[in-house]
């Protein structure tokens, strides 16, 4: 649900988490991003940085410049001033990511976890079962059947938290318990309803079932997509995972290594919230691919 009034929750002496609701939808993500945007524009006194996500915005503030109570008032005022999301029409880049689903690398990672840390059903089978899919092949069809909306970056520099735009492709999964100690670089996985790409060899909590050879952050900025930032994605980008073979993965990996890889993105499209909502309204969500 979307809360009538946002909740202002403290985190230690320097953080405030503002929750707009407890579901995943575009409207809440726009609230979070728009609030962060207006704070940056107005240079709100005492706010050092923000971290907007699916349904909330975290504020890092300096309590010697603004008290929790005053920050709450100020944030309330800014939230009131945010434009209605239905009016939003924004440029949105679309990235295609060649991805090996049910790949040998995440399988090795899951096997290692099962052997050393905790017993569990392998991730692809687990997600398929949990979501009532026929088998792991349908998982691949459903997961690769939609564009994903980049809601925010976080966890690790450049890691995109995304949500599926096509309601027929919504899948859910719990996060690992306990978390994994390692995940291969480029792993594609999901937790809750969110899909992410791991930018590096990292610990992690998402269920994993695919891998892409395309780098999404680069401290050396070897490719033009990193011109503005060493983190490639921006909130409002879209991603499509394009199933590919291990051979293609290795071919692309070599192209990346020698610097000749061409990132596949298009920049001519605008995303209209109103049109998106109209389209979703006519979709039968129970139909899977």
């Amino acid at each position: 649900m979307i809360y009538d009034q946002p909740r202002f929750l403290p985190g230690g002496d320097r953080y405030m988490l503002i929750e707009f609701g407890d579901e995943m939808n575009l409207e809440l993500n726009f609230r979070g991003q728009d609030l962060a945007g207006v704070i940056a524009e107005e240079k709100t006194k005492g706010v050092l940085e923000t971290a907007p996500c699916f349904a909330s915005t975290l504020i890092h503030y300096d309590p010697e410049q603004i008290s929790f109570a005053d920050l709450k008032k100020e944030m309330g005022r800014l939230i009131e001033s945010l434009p209605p999301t239905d009016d939003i029409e924004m440029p949105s880049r679309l990235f295609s990511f060649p991805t090996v689903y049910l790949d040998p690398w995440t399988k090795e990672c899951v096997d290692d976890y099962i052997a050393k840390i905790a017993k569990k059903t392998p991730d692809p089978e687990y997600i398929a079962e949990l979501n009532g899919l026929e088998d792991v092949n349908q998982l691949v069809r459903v997961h690769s059947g939609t564009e994903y909306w980049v809601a925010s970056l976080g966890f690790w520099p450049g890691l995109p938290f995304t949500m599926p735009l096509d309601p027929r492709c919504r899948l859910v999964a719990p996060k690992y318990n306990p978390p994994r100690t390692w995940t291969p670089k480029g792993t594609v996985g999901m937790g809750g309803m969110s899909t992410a790409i791991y930018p590096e060899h990292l610990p992690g909590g998402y269920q994993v079932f695919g891998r892409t050879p395309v780098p999404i952050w680069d401290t050396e900025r070897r490719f033009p997509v990193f011109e503005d930032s060493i983190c490639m994605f921006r909130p409002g980008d879209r991603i499509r995972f394009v199933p590919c073979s291990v051979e293609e993965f290795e071919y692309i990996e070599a192209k990346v290594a020698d610097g000749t890889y061409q990132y596949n993105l298009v920049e001519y499209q605008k995303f209209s919230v109103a049109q998106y909502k109209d389209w979703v309204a006519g979709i039968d969500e129970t139909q899977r691919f």
Partner: protein
Amino acid sequence: MGGEAMFEVIKAGLETAVQDYPGRIGYWNQGFPPSGPMDSWSFRLANVLVGNEPGEAALECQFVGPELRFHRDTVVAVTGGDMQPRLDGEPIELWTSVAVKKGQTLTLSYARTGARGYIAIAGGIRTEPWLGSRSTFHKAGVGGFEGGALKEGQQVPLGDAQGTPGLRVKDAARPTIVTDKRWLVEVTAGPNDDWLDEAGRKLFLETDWKLSPKSDRTGYRLDGPGDRITFADKAINKRPEHGSIPSNIIDQGYPNGAVNLAGETPIILVKDGPSMGGFINPYTVPTVGFWKLGQARPGEVLRLTEISVDEAQKQAVEMTRICSGESLESA
């Protein structure tokens, strides 16, 4: 910069790295952690002793300190856990500014108390800032000196400043590094404390958590009865996009210092920790408790004690006051 304004790393120690305070701020929305010193109390006072701004770049040493040869005259101070510092083999006092002559060698040994020692040098360390900070973010290989912990043979550039030797930090202004292996760490409730029920909150605060050896600058894992934490109804009956385990929540921004409940394992998110994720944070360690994490060793007990946000903010102001020239006296 003159070729002599530097020190040379003779022995690197276990993990000695350049940090500044408060670190890399402003990039939380892209996932960059602040990095910076784990014990900002000892760190800031080391700088103040040598006449630097409290946040100037200095060295953090973990468990076993380095051996450094100075290629210029300067003033240094060693604070934090007792790594038994020596200058050309002669013991020097902790919490005291000391003159160093060109060619002399500063050697730190293992930490007899605490876990981290700090070395500040007059004029500070002058490595190239990365995204606005000199702090080292080890796992990403960025910041600090060549992106990581110091290595034998490196020559680390120094700023140019005169320090005053013979100053010491008043006893009352020093952090108390415990010797009985038990730390009382302040926490504030939230942001997600209402996901636990009363018994769950009680268990959190009444448990002797053991700091796991599987801890590092990204997270401090707490060993204990994490599987017995109990939850409020909202953690159990919730929308599917949170994830089905009680501690699962729709991914959200994480405060640095949050006590994150990853499945059934509490992990305190520390200086190189993640900015976001999908687990609840029932408690957060504020500034006044955070420095203790920098001095706690694996196997030691962390007991969490709740204070109000107001109290945490008051104590942080007090800490800033302490980490200033008014805490110094002549040795």
